[in-house]
């Protein structure tokens, strides 16, 4: 067995000790994990992003226009001191502004209009009698949206429709819970496969 598998196996067991209760072995492993994860992000960000997008073109190809994003990036360091904290608001403004600018068409078109179109479209384009499932989807979307509309009191037929929306929501939450259980079990099964197969060699 190679030393990597032994280290990985022992650290896996160290984390599993948390199932009994929080303890120094778990805390030590957790601290090491956080430190290494941060160190890893630092390295990948430096080698894969800043070097290729900024420093190499700036230093090797003389791309002087990159001095602007460099200056904006350096302003982010202003956050580390109270006296210079205001400087970081400018690059944050770039991030927020760019994010909002690209989000408007995406949210309007890809998320709202296309989803509405996929809800209403099939019902009105079938020609004859629409499929039961399509009608259920239409009713589900409308009633759930009504449930989330709080500018009108949920009473009378409006309230009853909103209540129907909660049933659809419960079906969604239940379905998601089922899939989440599946996901969590898969992760544990994967770790057990490592422990039993690679580390302890109990199974092939």
């Amino acid at each position, binding site marked *: 067995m190679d030393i990597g598998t032994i280290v990985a196996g022992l650290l896996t067991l160290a984390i599993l000790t948390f199932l009994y209760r929080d303890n120094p072995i778990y805390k030590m492993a957790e601290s090491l994990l956080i430190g290494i994860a941060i160190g890893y992000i630092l390295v990948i*960000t430096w080698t*894969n992003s800043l070097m290729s997008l900024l420093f190499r073109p700036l230093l090797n190809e003389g791309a002087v226009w990159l001095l602007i994003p460099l200056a904006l990036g350096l302003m982010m360091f202003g956050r580390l001191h109270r006296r210079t904290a205001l400087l970081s608001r400018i690059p944050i403004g770039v991030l927020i502004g760019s994010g909002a600018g690209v989000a408007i068409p995406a949210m309007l078109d890809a998320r709202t209009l296309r989803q509405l179109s996929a809800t209403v479209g099939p019902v009105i384009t079938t020609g004859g009698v629409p499929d039961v499932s399509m009608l259920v989807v239409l009713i589900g979307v409308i009633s759930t949206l009504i449930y989330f509309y709080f500018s009108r009191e949920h009473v009378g037929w409006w309230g009853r429709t909103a209540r129907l929306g909660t049933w659809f929501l419960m079906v969604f939450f239940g379905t998601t819970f089922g899939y989440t259980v599946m*996901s969590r*079990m898969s992760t544990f099964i994967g770790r057990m496969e490592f422990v039993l197969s690679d580390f302890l060699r109990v199974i092939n």
Partner: protein
Amino acid sequence: MSRLEARHWVFLGLFLVVLVSMVLQVDLGVTVSDDSRRMHDYLESLPPGSTLLMSFDLEASSLPEMRPLALAIIRHAVSRGHRIVGVALLAEGTGIGYRLLEQVGREYGKVYGEDYVFLGFKPQYIAAMLSMGESIKQTFPEDYLGRPYDSLPVLRRITNYAQIDGVISLADGSLTTHWIEYAGNQYGVRVSAAVAAAMVTTYDPYLASGQLHAMIGGLRGAAEYEQLIHRGGSGLRGMLAQTTSHVYVIVMILIGNVAFFLGMRKRRAG
């Protein structure tokens, strides 16, 4: 030493159920769902030599679940003769994606740079997705190991998404949403996904609207896919444990409810 509580017994029960199921080493066959078949047919329908952009939008935490899925998809794509351009939009996906592509590349005797390439990580995933729509070279001037874009033959004819036959997002979180809404919507590239089971219901509306072309999810999805490509793996191996752990959770829910209703009846009677 503190006393064992009820939760410890529940933990121990789950541990034993999974342990015994795994030691038994029984491969359960699974019924292939429409979702898995659709993804399989999609990769089959692409002519050999098509270029797929695989985005490793995942973290180390979900690797036990995502690894079988990713391996099944990559193996299928590579065995069909498709070229793969790998990227990572989450930092941890970088090491994972690089190693998975390297592993499958070795298995099938593929040459790095000619049959597949790994471009590495770029921060701010939305900016990276949009940027690749304009120019993949400007987004990734170098590959993961710092080799210039132009020196890699597999990238020679690729400028942006227009030359990419499909994006496959291997995601444990919400990044597929952004692939659909930004790359798919704005640049018209076909987006498919292999996702953690917990995210399946999040993407269902996109699958139903056609914005997401195909999707497989979770260890069960991996098992189905392994069955489709006739190559067993962790997915099929884990199906017995997956089944027994589900039964265990169902039994826990039922016991909890029986205890609750019995307790309620007792309180009413009292």
